[in-house]
């Protein structure tokens, strides 16, 4: 069973100040999922259009501390797999500035 105390010390990757409705369940789901990453890991998040997407990136603000891509309704996964392919290609050619985990 995870230790709540330990988890509360984890890096915050999704911050407050967004415009989701009070009581919306989506931000807490995001927070808990991102907690499952190790602190030294970096994520690329592709977000399909919806409340979570439009309400967390009102220009020029963002709630996301990781790389975050705004995508249409249907292609969030395609964007993510494209990013992964690009990452692998750059890694193979040794063009990555620093090591980033996949």
């Amino acid at each position: 069973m995870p230790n709540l105390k330990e988890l509360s010390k984890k890096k915050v990757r999704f911050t407050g100040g967004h415009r989701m409705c009070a009581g919306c369940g989506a931000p807490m789901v995001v927070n808990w999922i991102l907690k499952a990453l190790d602190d030294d890991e970096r994520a690329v998040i592709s977000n399909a259009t919806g409340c979570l997407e439009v309400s967390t990136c009102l220009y020029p603000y963002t709630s996301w501390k990781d790389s975050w891509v705004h995508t249409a309704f249907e292609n969030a996964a395609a964007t993510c797999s494209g990013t992964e392919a690009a990452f692998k290609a750059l890694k193979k050619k040794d063009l990555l500035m620093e090591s980033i985990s996949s």
Partner: protein
Amino acid sequence: MLYVCYDNGAYMNTGIQRSSATPYGADTTTSPAGKVKQGKEQFRKDLTEIMVAHHIPYAAQTVPVIPGTPYMFDLYNKAEKAFKITGAKFMNVLTPCPRGWRCDTATELEVVKAAVETCFWPLYEVENGEYKINYIPKEKKPITEWLKLQGRFKHLLKPENEHIVQKIQEEVDRRWERLLFLAKVK
């Protein structure tokens, strides 16, 4: 890649239009309950099972963290497991939208709990084709326990709509029995 779907059961952002994820009987702006119709007339499309059918290494269904339940860390545990698996992974999280569900924000997690306890939303995972149910309620609650907490189902509780509730109950039972069979519990 881990694909996470936060299923709130409608196109909430554009004003609560019904979607394939909308449960049977729900009142939405494009499946309104009124004199003629009693909300959505199709059962919810089972996205988790659709993903399982893709034979990906990991697909799971879960709920937000609800303190005091035996499944409090189900969401966290599944995310942690999924991140460690290579390949395409999927998680479906039943996520409250107080606006669309027309429920109280202070007690919305009780609604989600009711979804688990009635087996409307079973907690399970499928790893390399192996089904595992993560929580089996000691006593399965009637579906009205989930319906009665939400304004979008209010019309279903009228005596004349009892047959609709019964139809929903039968479908929930059928899907739950199927899951027990797939997980080799029965």
